[in-house]
């Protein structure tokens, strides 16, 4: 007797559902998985930038507030003097970028932790990233295009504002 070919029985695995498939209500499935190292990198970045910020911020505060005349020395010409030096330009730039990226990523974490709706989450993050971008770009431009020797329309140095070293130029 010829056996009746049953195509579905040829490969039994085809007729059998994968373990657990369909048994889990879709509402319990994780929304979507990401197979990237982004969250790991963000986690490591928080720790590395945090450690760098301790040094950057401590020296920043020490030089501004403790050395020399301390808090009384801070005015336009003090800032201008610091930014005339490439070391402080680099220092402040690093501090700006690290603090902004660190702070923004920290806020991203907090939004992820607290926002319950996907739409709220998306809006808050859009506002966060936009404001971070504005501050980083403006801050970077200020550090690089800073003009310490302000002049009036006639080209004379503004008295009382321009730091000492402008007079020598």
């Amino acid at each position: 007797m010829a056996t009746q070919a049953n195509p579905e029985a040829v490969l039994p695995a085809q007729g059998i559902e994968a373990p657990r498939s369909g048994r889990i209500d879709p509402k319990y499935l994780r929304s979507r998985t990401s197979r990237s190292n982004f969250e790991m990198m963000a986690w490591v970045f928080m720790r590395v930038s945090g450690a760098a910020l301790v040094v950057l911020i401590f020296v920043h505060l020490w030089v501004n507030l403790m050395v020399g005349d301390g808090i009384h020395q801070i005015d336009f010409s003090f800032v201008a003097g610091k930014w005339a030096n490439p070391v402080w330009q680099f220092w402040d730039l690093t501090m700006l970028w690290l603090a902004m990226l660190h702070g923004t990523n920290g806020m991203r974490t907090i939004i992820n932790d607290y926002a319950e709706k996907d739409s709220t989450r998306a809006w808050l993050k859009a506002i966060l990233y936009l404001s971070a971008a504005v501050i980083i770009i403006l801050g970077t431009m200020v550090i690089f295009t800073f003009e310490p020797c302000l002049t009036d329309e006639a080209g004379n140095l503004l008295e009382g504002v321009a730091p000492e070293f402008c007079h020598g130029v």
Partner: protein
Amino acid sequence: MSTATVENEPASTVDLGESGDGAGAIESFEVTLKVRRYDPERAEDAWWDEWTLTMYGTDRVLDALHKVKWEIDGSLTFRRSCAHGICGSDAMRINGRNRLACKTLLKDLDTSKPITVEAIKGLPIEKDLIVDMEPFFQSYREIMPFLINNSPAPTAERLQSPEDRERFDDTTKCILCAACTSSCPVFWTDGQYFGPAAIVNAHRFIFDSRDDAGDMRLEVLNDKEGVWRCRTTFNCTDACPRGIEVTKAIQEVKTAIITRSL
């Protein structure tokens, strides 16, 4: 000459009377049990019920719940099975902390105020103290909580040195009660986070020298809802009735993921 000494057992805080006969001699006291009830067939919102009961120094919160269910209000609903801290069915929020009702002695709580009992948080409540554990077990399944070994099965058991066994000893103690996961504020918000219990049970196999699928489990937990959502709050470690160092286990998995990708 020095000699090994055994410290004296601490005196019991339950004052057993000098004379008397059996249970009757155990000190009794009044407790007020305040339970957060929910029954969608009776009311839309949850409500609180209070009962004042005469309990004994040897009684646990579970005994108080039994007394209510068996003698006062049979509709009170909760899970319990072993009643001895092994099955993990009766994790609940007692006086604001996640614990097993069967391992919490009434005399250890402040009996001058009502003892509040609520369902664990972050999982959908079905009735009274019973929550839907499916999201919890779904995460558990995803980390593949079983031994995966590619070599042919030996005729006898797979041998392991005591040191290798010790490496994951702590995380073998889990009874899947969900006290940790449902104490985690990151889990509370949207329930997407894998949660401490899934990570603990992944740890149990990742650090088992006989298992070959550690890499796959690390990959699963490298998800955006995986270990990186942990904010090291330590709620899980405080909640675990088995005394597992949950936050430490999570940290070890994080470190393993980082070292793996270097």
